[in-house]
């Protein structure tokens, strides 16, 4: 089976997000006064084959652990869909 995994990586609470800060300033300058906070993360899309959704999930989790996410500063969430 083929799967598409979407991994959302965000900076942990309390970790300074300088990009988010700069973007918040820009939004304020554009007149979006109501913006209180901006946090910027990244989205990683992986297409992979696996025997089952459980196996696909396991693969993706290992990938996050071994490379994609730095647990000291980041958290992640994964959503998985079968694509054939």
């Amino acid at each position, binding site marked *: 089976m083929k799967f598409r995994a979407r991994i959302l990586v965000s900076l942990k609470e309390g970790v300074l997000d*300088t990009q988010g800060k700069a973007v918040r300033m820009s939004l304020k300058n554009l007149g979006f006064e109501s913006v209180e906070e901006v946090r910027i993360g990244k989205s990683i899309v992986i297409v992979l084959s696996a025997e089952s959704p459980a196996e696909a999930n396991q693969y993706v989790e290992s990938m996050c652990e071994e*490379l994609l996410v730095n647990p000291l500063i980041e958290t992640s969430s994964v959503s998985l869909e079968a694509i054939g």
Partner: protein
Amino acid sequence: MNASVVVFPGSNCDRDVLHALGTIAGIPATPVWHKETVLPEGTELVVLPGGFSYGDYLRCGAMAARSPIIRAVREHALQGRLVLGICNGFQVLTEAGLLPGALLSNSTLEFICSPCLLRVERTDTPFTNAYREGALVQFPIAHHEGLFFLPEKELQELEENRQVVFRYASADGSAGIRQSPNGSLNGIAGIVNRHGNVLGLMPHPERASERILGGTDGLRMWNSIKSWLEGGSK
């Protein structure tokens, strides 16, 4: 006494380090491609140089930290032998788990390329024994991701274990986050592991090793390493 300088795709300070070690300091140094799985025989010092390994993709140093040579570097470090990470090399060491912490984007959001005053916090390491404690030295910095970060509790432990070796300082000798050009917590510019044999720092000692480059404060780092390897001083 031999040094190995690891070259990753995107390293750009490897030749500067080879020059500083080999030509100026008299420590024979050879480049080692990151795909190698063993270090050249007789390697006593491994240097991970500055640059933009793998284009800084994903996170600075993340991919380089998973390169084949890193297993050998880890083993070298675990045996208590010397590893020095400069700039991108420091980022690689944190990503490889050989040093604590992470380097985040500068608080100014700018790439900073500038001479920088540092206060030497420890002189009992293999890398800094030729300095005077509390001495102010000038090395240049050139980075976009140099804000040293650790969660509060771990940061406190790092300080209690005296692992901070260099701190950003001003000319009056004060040092801390206010003196830090990049927003580094506690003004941290360089740290060692618990054992003291692995040093990572954002500033570039190899660019402060010749008068023609504007300063020679980095020379003492090579001399420290040399005398430590010769067993003269610990």
